[in-house]
């Protein structure tokens, strides 16, 4: 499994993301946002940071970058796409995930470890976790408040698309939502940083199983509906 780690101007978790997937046994390469193809890659990782300086809205400029059409193609091919933090914001901006991320309700930047619950382990990203398992991932965001309208929320619930929730909601996210998956089950976005939770010595290694599972992705996976 070879993953593309997309680098936008202002991405700053790209090295952590590459390190995580390689440590988990995958191959990975950085891909510049000006590229227009992702042929040869089996999956995409969109790292955190402040792409294009968060100009206009976080993720807005990235949504019209040259690489974006290729990311959508990878998603349409049922290959795994993971967006973390700014990567999650970008996935909502390009329409691969519903809803939007707005300012934290306190309007402060939050950087700390958060305790979270894996609410759906029936996905090819989270099947190594127990359902309802408590994990610790760091968060570091100013705009991590997940917003969606009532209709979208009902759909998320009905399709079991809510994958990760905060135990102690830090940002005002609707119904404690920290991470969601698309209906098809191959595009996952989350505000917390599993790529910063790989070493127990540094506080948590709860992120490791997510990346390990991604390296074992199969093209004709049972989970893909």
């Amino acid at each position: 499994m070879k993953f593309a780690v997309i680098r936008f101007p202002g991405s700053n978790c790209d090295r952590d993301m590459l390190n995580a997937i390689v440590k988990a046994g995958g191959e990975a390469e950085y891909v510049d946002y000006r590229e227009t193809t992702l042929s040869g890659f089996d999956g995409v990782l969109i790292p955190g940071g402040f792409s294009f300086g968060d100009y206009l809205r976080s993720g807005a400029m990235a949504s019209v970058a040259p690489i974006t059409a290729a990311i959508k193609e990878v998603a349409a091919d049922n290959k795994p796409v993971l967006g973390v933090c700014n990567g999650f914001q970008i996935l909502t901006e390009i329409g691969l995930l519903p809803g939007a991320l707005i300012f934290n309700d306190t309007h402060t930047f939050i950087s700390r470890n958060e305790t979270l619950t894996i609410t759906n382990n029936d996905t090819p990203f989270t099947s190594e976790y127990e359902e309802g398992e408590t994990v610790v991932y760091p968060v570091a965001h100013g705009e991590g408040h997940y917003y969606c309208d009532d209709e979208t929320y009902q759909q998320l619930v009905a399709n079991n698309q809510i994958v990760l929730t905060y135990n102690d909601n830090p940002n005002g996210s609707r119904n404690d939502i920290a991470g969601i998956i698309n209906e098809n089950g191959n595009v996952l976005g989350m505000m917390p940083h599993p790529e910063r939770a790989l070493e127990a010595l540094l506080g948590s290694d709860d992120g490791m199983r997510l990346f390990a599972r991604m390296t074992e992705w199969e093209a004709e996976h049972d989970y893909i509906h």
Partner: protein
Amino acid sequence: MKKVELIVTLKPQVLDTQGEALNRAVHELDHDEINNIRVGKVLYFDIDETDDAKIDENVRQLSEKLFTNTVIETYSYKVLEEVSQ
């Protein structure tokens, strides 16, 4: 060539933390008569078009593709004036 003013605001149901902070600050300045502050953005740009229908089409297309996120924001625009070339 026309100049366009595009105003982008958060939908009423979307929490506006900047507006709330400003509202508190204004009250601390003893201006209790001010309430419900909402903060938006304004974009000004020139458009090399004179036909109103064409301007409307272009502005709406770009507003929905890039200038706004219609999940959380709404927009309105005005054609301000003829720009001399």
